[in-house]
């Protein structure tokens, strides 16, 4: 079975509402039309996808393979469902939003995801509803050589407050396959949303993710990414500050080892004034791994009194690992505060010397320095459940 309209018809379209069928078919047409990204395209210059053939993984896995942790006693009006089910039951909430932030025709991979997305969550929190317990969505992959393409759609009503965790988990560490995990978040006026995505697919998969949030007036997004899995992982994190007083915190940690390749593209899009964004991506690299970070702060002409910060820090633990960092700014207004910074470098030999002079063995000292490196960003994980999960994952990586 290939990734054709025939297989789309057989596997997914059955029983889906007309508008969704149409959206999938349009995305498939885009997939067939769009070329592979050219090496000359700045976004893909350092990101090699020439050996990725989606047709190798045309078996779609678990069309609703998602385990939703439903906190006991969800307030009335909250909708938490697998996305495809929700599309049938609540089209009025989903049709106007699905794939309007993450565009299905952005490139070949986004198109493939939009055409064939399988599991995924729909979360709707009505106006004024606050949920204390985090909501957890776990996406599992069970089989080797398949495609697992979950999509999360989150809608926060005015003044809603809640936390959500997407966890991407492999049954088998050495699985191959095609994975994605895209997310669209709509933040209504004054809402506060914490979103954490923990990607720990198997070591041999291709992973593509597009996350984009749109923030209305006075809303706050705290978004946190953890990237650990895949042999290839490309994540785009974009926040569109569309309402005055909105605030986006975009944080991430990544730990690349063996021959893993991680790519992050971020956008802090300040479309109106009095907005704030703060981005911090921290990563460690060992063995022969490679990472690419490219981020852009864009401040529109009339977006005065905006603050935007962007920092990417890379700790290179091996001589053969390679980190590339490209922080970019496009500032069209003067009444702003913008800074960005990027560093790439090994463990500071002076720090190591200091610890060793205190009698700490080199390997322990190194581990302490790595823990210290991640420490400040770990503290920014929006809720405790996710923090513990990430700390445990990191601990096992640092060894």
């Amino acid at each position, binding site marked *: 079975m290939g990734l054709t309209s025939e297989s789309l018809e057989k596997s997914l379209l059955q029983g889906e509402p007309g508008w969704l069928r149409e959206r999938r078919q349009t995305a498939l047409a885009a997939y067939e039309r769009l070329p592979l990204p050219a090496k000359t395209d700045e976004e893909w210059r*350092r990101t090699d996808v020439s050996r990725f053939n989606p047709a190798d993984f045309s078996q779609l896995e678990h069309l609703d393979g998602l385990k939703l942790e439903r906190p006991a006693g969800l307030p009335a009006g909250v909708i938490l469902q697998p996305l495809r089910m929700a599309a049938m039951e609540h089209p009025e909430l989903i049709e106007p939003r699905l794939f309007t932030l993450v565009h299905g025709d952005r490139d070949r991979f986004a198109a493939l995801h939009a055409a064939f997305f399988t599991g995924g969550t729909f979360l709707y929190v009505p106006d004024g509803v606050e949920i204390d317990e985090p909501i957890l969505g776990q996406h599992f992959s069970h089989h080797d050589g398949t495609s697992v393409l979950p999509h999360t759609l989150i809608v926060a009503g005015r003044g809603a407050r809640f936390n959500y965790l997407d966890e991407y988990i492999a049954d088998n560490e050495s699985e191959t396959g095609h994975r994605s995990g895209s997310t669209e978040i709509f933040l209504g006026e004054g809402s506060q949303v914490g979103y954490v995505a923990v990607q720990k697919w198997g070591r041999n998969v291709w992973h593509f993710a597009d996350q984009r949030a749109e923030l209305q007036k006075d809303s706050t997004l705290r978004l946190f990414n953890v990237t650990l899995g895949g042999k290839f992982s490309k994540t785009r994190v974009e926040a569109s500050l569309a309402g005055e007083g909105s605030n986006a915190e975009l944080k991430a940690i990544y730990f690349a080892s063996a021959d893993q390749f991680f790519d992050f593209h971020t956008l802090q899009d300040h479309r109106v004034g009095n907005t704030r964004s703060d981005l911090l991506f921290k990563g460690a690299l060992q063995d022969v791994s490679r990472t690419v970070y490219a981020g852009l702060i864009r401040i529109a*002409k*009339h977006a*005065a009194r905006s603050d935007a910060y962007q920092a990417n820090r890379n700790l*290179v633990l091996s*001589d*053969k690992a*390679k*980190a*590339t*960092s*490209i*922080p*970019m*700014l*496009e*500032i*069209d*207004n*003067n*009444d*702003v*505060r*913008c*800074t*960005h*910074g*990027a*560093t*790439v*470098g*090994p463990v500071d030999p002076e720090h190591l010397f200091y610890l060793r002079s205190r009698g700490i063995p080199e390997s322990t000292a190194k581990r302490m320095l790595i823990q210290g490196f991640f420490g400040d960003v770990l503290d920014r994980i929006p809720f405790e459940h996710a923090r513990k999960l990430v700390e445990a994952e990191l601990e096992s990586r640092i060894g």
Partner: protein
Amino acid sequence: MATVPKVEVGTDYKEKYGFFVPEEYVFKAKRGLNPEIVKEISWMKQEPEWMTNMRLRSLEIFRKKPMPKWGADLSVIDFENIFYYLKASDKQSKTWEDLPPDIKATYDRLGVPEAERKFLAGVSAQYESEVVYHSLQKELTAKGVIFTDTDSALRDHPDLFKEYFGTVIPPADNKFSALNTAVWSGGSFIYVPKGVRVDIPLQAYFRINAENMGQFERTLIICDEGSFVHYIEGCTAPIYTTDSLHSAVVEIIVKKNARCRYTTIQNWSTNVFNLVTKRAMAYADATMEWVDGNLGSQITMKYPSVYLMEPGAKGDVLSVAFAGKGQHQDAGGKMIHVAPNTTSTITSKSISKGGGRTSYRGHIKIYPGANNCKSFVKCDALLLDDESRSDTYPYNDVDAENVTLGHEATVSKVSDEQLFYLMSRGIPRAEAETMIVNGFIEPFTKELPLEYAVELNRLIQLEMEGSVG
């Protein structure tokens, strides 16, 4: 107080000053670009055959290369509608007195030395500093230093010339280096022998003997082992020109233990597209420093670069850009680490006002095997009003081991607190803003010879007067 003429450097000179130079040329190549015109240029200059061939080959390359799609919008350049070679008939006929009073007034207010003013204004008549010039030439010659224009160098030092010309920036490097190689004219040629230190900065206007400034200048500097030279290409005062395209190539070779500093302050009138390729090769323990200021032109695309070829080499770029109304300064620097244990820094300061746009564009490339390198980039941008724009595009490619790379950038407006502080001391707002801007670019001005630093500060003052009335 007498009213001072309002001088706004960075707006259209022609409208402001009604300044133009009557055209009188002995030789004027036809408009446009084709092999016949290139051959004609070469024949006019009585060049050896290898140069004629190189020009023709470069023209081919220029034709084949596509226009760059990044950076500023260059689609408006019409290559077929440009004169590629003009030889002035009688330079002496133009005198200082013929210059428009406003240009003279600008020079006055800037305090530009008279000799230099005349040079800038294209007046190459005899003046007092000729004496200085001669004694300088005598001193340089005694040390074995060659300092001449590039056309004469090809004639008088053919072997040295052929050995280095086009080796740092081959014609095929980019579309505009190909264009320059095809039609180049003028520029400086400097050779500093082993161990020789040239104590005073060499400036283009010392060469009163030949064409000083051209549309397609070609400069070649060779610093032999252990030598030192500081070359100053341009200066702060506005340079009026009718040409719409300036595309220079500057090649520098800094050999073992040598040090070269190259200072430019570009202040073309705002009708000019300034597309320049500047590159240096630095060998073992050599130091190359670019001090690069961009104030004029409509569009500038210029990224001075250093290829760090052998261990211990050090590269340094200090860049200042000022973009006013209708200007786009796309400037920055490139550091290419080819050898291990090399270090580089790029410091960029940019100021945008009145709808101007400044872009920092830089590239740090560290090749495989170039281990233990360090590179640091710092970009600060100041936006003086809400119509202006600032961008930062740093590209970093690290393929080596144990590399430390840092990049930092800030964008801000003149801070209210700083302004408040100064104004609370009784300093008027406009003056306070000027002081802050001058303070902002201080790391740049302090690297300039004193007279230029003073001029630059005054120039900023003039610019600021224009902005706040």
